[in-house]
């Protein structure tokens, strides 16, 4: 796998617990006639990012050819104050009432990772989606309340076709309001500088301590053949990501469904999604058994009569049973407050 993580820890000597600014890129490099065949788009992206943040006081993290598991982890890393994602994207177009050409944010591996951006750690202050025409997508997430636990989050993207390097520069500049200030030094280009106020408000943020009423559910996954990482979703909202699974592996996981998401039994339909943007061949995701921990209810695979799952890149488990009553819910702190304990 070409997923090489490069970690730069610069200028953090005065503060070992500096917040992190993270650049994640996930795209292929097209052939450009005047570049050598070894040239890759990640090189200029890294240079731009380093140049702008080297004096910022933030810990700089750069990862390339990022997969969806890494993206999910970084979106939920409590140490991240800003995340810049660079990949291909497209906006939704409504073809007619009830039929759309869906929006997409497609990574290097052909996964549509747009749903991952619906769930961001409440410590994050700036989220940039550097991709073509992704502005309406991210703004819709914000206006529909996906980031209601994080009122200070600023999102930034583009409503047009954009070049990767130009887009990243613009997004970095736009992040200054959330991360400190931007200073343009003649001949040296612009730099982001943090301020004590921003660093202090980040380190003293206690939004991660908030608790939610959740229903606890366990899931067993058996993969006859190697299975990809999958997202568990309710109404396109990701509850958790399950890692890749080897052939013959049996794994058990727990996940939590916020009671606020459940208004009717159909809201407990669980989609198991490889997130692969398109495949003409069925992706074997595994066999899943879902068991509620403290309420009654059953899930059944949406399948043909012979048991073959219906769905090429995703499977659906339909719920039968009553909506669990509120007293079956438990209070849970959803987000980690630190990974540095």
């Amino acid at each position: 796998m070409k997923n090489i993580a490069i970690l730069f820890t610069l200028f953090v000597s005065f503060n070992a617990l500096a917040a992190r600014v993270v650049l994640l890129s996930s795209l292929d490099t097209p052939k450009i006639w005047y570049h050598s065949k070894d040239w890759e788009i990640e090189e200029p992206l890294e240079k731009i990012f380093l140049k702008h943040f080297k004096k910022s006081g933030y810990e700089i993290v750069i990862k390339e050819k990022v997969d969806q598991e890494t993206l999910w982890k970084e979106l939920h890393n409590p140490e991240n104050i800003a995340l810049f994602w660079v990949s291909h994207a497209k906006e939704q177009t409504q073809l007619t009432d009830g039929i759309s050409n869906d929006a997409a944010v497609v990574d290097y591996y052909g996964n549509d990772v747009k749903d991952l951006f619906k769930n961001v750690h409440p410590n994050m202050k700036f989220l940039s989606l550097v991709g073509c025409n992704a502005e309406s997508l991210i703004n819709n997430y914000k206006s529909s309340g996906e980031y209601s636990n994080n009122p200070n989050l600023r999102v930034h993207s583009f409503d047009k076709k954009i070049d990767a390097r130009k887009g990243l520069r613009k997004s970095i500049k736009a992040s200054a309001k959330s991360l400190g200030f931007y200073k343009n030094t003649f001949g040296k280009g612009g730099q982001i500088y943090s301020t004590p106020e921003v660093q202090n408000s980040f380190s003293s943020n206690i939004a991660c301590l908030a608790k939610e009423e959740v229903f606890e559910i366990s899931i067993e996954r058996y993969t006859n053949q190697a299975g990809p990482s999958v997202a568990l979703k309710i109404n396109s909202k990701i509850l958790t990501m399950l890692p890749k699974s080897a052939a013959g592996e049996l794994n058990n996981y727990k996940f939590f469904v916020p009671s606020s998401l459940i208004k009717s039994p159909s809201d407990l339909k669980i989609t198991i999604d490889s997130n692969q943007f398109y495949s003409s061949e069925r992706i074997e995701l595994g066999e899943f058994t879902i068991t509620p921990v403290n309420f009654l209810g059953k899930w059944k695979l949406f399948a043909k009569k012979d048991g073959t799952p219906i769905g090429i890149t995703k499977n659906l488990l339909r719920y039968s049973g009553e909506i669990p009553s509120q007293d079956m819910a438990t209070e849970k702190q959803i987000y980690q407050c630190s990974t540095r304990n």
Partner: protein
Amino acid sequence: MSVALLSLILTQTSQAAIGGMTALFNPVIGGKIALTGLATAGAGTIGSLFYRGSCGSGECLAPLFFGVSIGLILLDEANGKIEFTKIDPASAHELGLKKFEVLIFNSEVEEANLVLSEVISQINESTTHEDVTEIWSEYESILSPESFNVMKALASKKQ
């Protein structure tokens, strides 16, 4: 242009292979072909979905190629994926549907999209119009009659 031609072929000879090479690589075209087959499963007309904006006819590729040639790395995802979306029950009448049908469809829209993905996956360069209709008929009983009726109405709706 090639999209318009595809539609023309459909109306002239349903025995012709309607997928063409584009359907193999472009899920939007595959989706539109699938919807056309759905629209004509039973009563209905071939929709004019083919004429609506998408990158399927290659119009998005021109700026991409131009961009790369001058060194731009445009972050444009040229393809797309056709999906059903929930409908406002208030618009049921406009679509010639009953409100309860729309409500049932809205509750089964995920199932509808999974079935659509199954149908699209079976479309290739040799698929005929009859084939698509046949594929849809295999899946008809999997969905509720109300949802299937709404899907047909959406696919056949004139633009």
